[in-house]
């Protein structure tokens, strides 16, 4: 079959597009994996469980309801009505709680949970009637193994099984407010706290958490949300059902955990200060130098340009010890602290990123036609005014691009920051480096830290990406 030129072109176009999008997906996959891993559990990352974990749905409580129905309450906060005769589901609602415990009264279901506090639910239509959140500070609610609840009169006594919160809240059930906080009072209100009554039953998959006897029938609530109806006379299972799957556990708490563990706010502030000032200083110096180099062939200009290129060839590690010792000696001589201060590291960074910035900026200034400046000079402008009013505005896109480039590079710098900062001025890379050493297998926290370290530069990039692309490509084409 002979295809026309345009048909051929069209087909290759489509094939190339598909190939390109596939490659794009492959390129972005690691970043997606980073964000996804930061929401997972550390052990899940380590063992290679790709899917997110779901909340457990062990049935914790079974009660008869309106003679022909059965209320099954499971660990993920889901409330289910089943028809007692054939276990057909009538109604289901999940409150997506963690470490749930229940208390019942004729009108309400009380759900005590680690992540959502105490929830009061109407028993007939499963609507929320009130909620009370407890001040638990910074604890990771995903790690609270159990909560306890007991209803005595109009008061609810609730507690969380967590070492720092050994205490009982006394809550007024009518208007949902904390009446009292009883410290270290757990045992007297919850005599069986911490023990789970499980037993095996022949034929039941898993363990039985609760049972309910209704005439000749025995209802069994078991692991994984399995609900069985057992006929004790005929000695066989009559019906069986499973409550709906638990909600996905997306651990946003990793970020809070990471933030508290590594003091990330301090590192972020330090990085922003250091990179911001470095950007400004290096940009100002580089603009002047690049303008001079691109406009005038003064004695020594060739030497200067070659020196700028030559600095790029020197390994950074060669600077490290001399600069460290220069800092220490300077402090000894003048008693002005330099090592571990912001201005010390900003000075070093500005000097370090200067040559490359000059090199990029020179191309931008060279692209501005000289005639404009000569015209301004003839009109009687001073050199400085020409620079300020003619050259600078025209080179502005390039200057912005260079500035962002410096910021990105300063954000990325590890070696100098490692040696020249102290505990108060550590930047993000140093903080992450220390943190990786201390938390060897907390992959979730590492990924959360990685995401937080990436977000500021990504935001900056997407705000100013037009300038960056133009700046970088302009430098490239001129060679």
């Amino acid at each position, binding site marked *: 079959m002979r295809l026309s030129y345009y048909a051929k072109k069209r087909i290759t*176009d489509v094939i190339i*597009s598909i*190939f*390109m999008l596939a*490659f*794009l997906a492959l390129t*972005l996959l690691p*970043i997606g*994996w*980073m964000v996804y891993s930061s929401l997972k559990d550390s052990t*899940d*990352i*380590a*063992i*290679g469980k790709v899917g997110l974990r779901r909340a457990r749905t062990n049935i914790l409580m079974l009660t008869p309801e309106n003679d022909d129905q059965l209320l099954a309450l499971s660990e993920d906060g889901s409330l289910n009505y089943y028809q007692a005769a054939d276990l057909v589901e009538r109604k289901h609602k999940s409150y997506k709680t963690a470490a749930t415990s229940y208390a019942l009264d004729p009108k309400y279901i009380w759900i005590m949970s680690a992540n959502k506090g105490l929830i009061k639910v109407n028993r007939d239509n499963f609507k929320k009637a009130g909620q009370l959140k407890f001040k638990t500070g910074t604890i990771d609610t995903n790690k609270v193994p159990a909560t306890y609840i007991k209803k005595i009169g109009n008061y609810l006594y609730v507690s969380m099984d967590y070492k720092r919160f050994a205490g009982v809240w006394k809550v007024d059930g009518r208007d949902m407010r904390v009446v009292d906080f009883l410290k270290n009072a757990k045992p007297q209100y919850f005599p069986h706290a911490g023990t789970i009554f499980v037993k095996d039953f022949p034929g039941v998959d898993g363990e039985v958490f609760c049972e309910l006897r209704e005439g000749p029938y025995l209802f069994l609530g078991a692991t994984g949300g399995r609900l069985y109806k057992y006929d004790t006379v005929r000695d066989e299972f009559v019906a069986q059902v499973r409550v709906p799957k638990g909600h996905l556990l997306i651990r946003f708490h990793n970020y809070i955990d990471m933030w508290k563990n590594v003091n990330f706010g301090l590192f972020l502030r330090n990085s922003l200060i250091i990179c911001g000032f470095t950007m400004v200083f290096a940009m100002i*110096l580089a603009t*002047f*130098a690049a303008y*001079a180099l691109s406009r005038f062939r*003064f*004695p020594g200009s060739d030497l*200067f340009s070659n020196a*700028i290129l030559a600095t*790029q*060839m*020197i*390994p*950074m*590690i*060669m*600077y*490290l*010890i*001399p600069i460290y010792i*220069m800092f220490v000696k300077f402090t000894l001589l003048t008693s002005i602290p330099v090592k571990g201060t912001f201005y010390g590291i900003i000075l070093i960074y*500005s*000097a*370090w990123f*200067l*040559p490359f910035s000059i090199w990029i900026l020179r191309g931008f200034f060279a692209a501005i036609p000289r005639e404009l400046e000569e015209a301004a000079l003839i009109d009687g402008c001073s050199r400085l005014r020409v620079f300020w009013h003619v050259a600078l505005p025209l080179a502005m896109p390039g200057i912005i691009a260079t500035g962002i480039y410096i910021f990105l590079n300063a954000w*990325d710098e*590890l*070696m100098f920051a490692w040696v020249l900062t102290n505990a108060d001025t550590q930047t993000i*890379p140093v903080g*992450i480096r220390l943190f990786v*050493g201390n938390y060897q297998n907390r*992959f979730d926290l*590492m990924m959360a*830290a*990685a995401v937080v*370290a*990436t977000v500021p*530069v*990504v935001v900056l*990039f997407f705000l100013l990406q037009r300038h960056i*692309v133009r700046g970088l*490509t*302009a430098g*490239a084409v001129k*060679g």
Partner: protein
Amino acid sequence: MKKNGKSLWSRIKKYRFAYYFILPTALAMLFLHLSPIVQGIYMSFLRLNQFTLQQYLLAPFCGFDNYYKVLINPDSPIRIGLFEAVRNTTIYTVIVTLGTLAIGIIVALMMNRKFFGRPLVRTLFLFPWIVPTYVTGLLWGIIWLKQGGLVNVMLVDWLHILPFKPSWLSGPNTIWAIIIPTIWRFWPLSMLMLLAGLQTIPDELYEAADIDGASPWRKFWMITWPMLKPVWFILILFGLIYNTYSFNIVIMMFGFGAGYPGEWGDLMMTNIFRNSFQLWNFGTGAATSVLLLIVMIVVVNVWFTYFKKSEELRN
């Protein structure tokens, strides 16, 4: 002679303005580039270790002893893992530089068409380049994990290409575990620059080639590649320099594991870092740096000469 000197002085006076402009930069370069470099080179002739660090430049002078230790003496502890570091750095630099360029040119050619959403696709392609290198090391350290890493999950659990889960972070595989993240991090930049270069090539050249009946392959090698020469010259130049001095990705991926001498994940920079800051042998560390610097100067000069020669040939 006298006349020449006079004109030099008058030229300096004439360009007084330019000197004011470069003065701050020149001072910064003098104090924070030149002076440390001179000190660093001098350090390589001193017996500078944790005992003599206090004296710094007054430490005992030992001539070329440090160089002897690094290059010749087979018994010196400094040489443990040095050969492997040189080998790894060479492999790493060459493959990363060429790989970045190859992927960059392929994607740039694919991007050099008009299609819907092109600026968005270009921005998304640039995404890996914004991710800081230390994050790249950290992230790929997780991706290469033996049990739960994305690569092993994909190769073994999803695609069933391999019958077992290989270990990427130990043994010879390590070199790929550092090469691939580096390429992933840096190819978008070369793509961007090559794309900008591609857009400056006039269409008439391709039209003329079409009339002559040239195949796409021939068109690429006869038109596109030579026309892109300024771009790939710069990319290879800076690729060689930066990849030889690559540090962040390796140190974040292996921690000080990269410092295990003789492993496939040990590069020159980590080797020098270990010599200096773990063995406290600053003198030999400086000597190794100086040797590396000399090698780099030679490499860059060879590349420059090659470029100049081929330019002359073309003209």
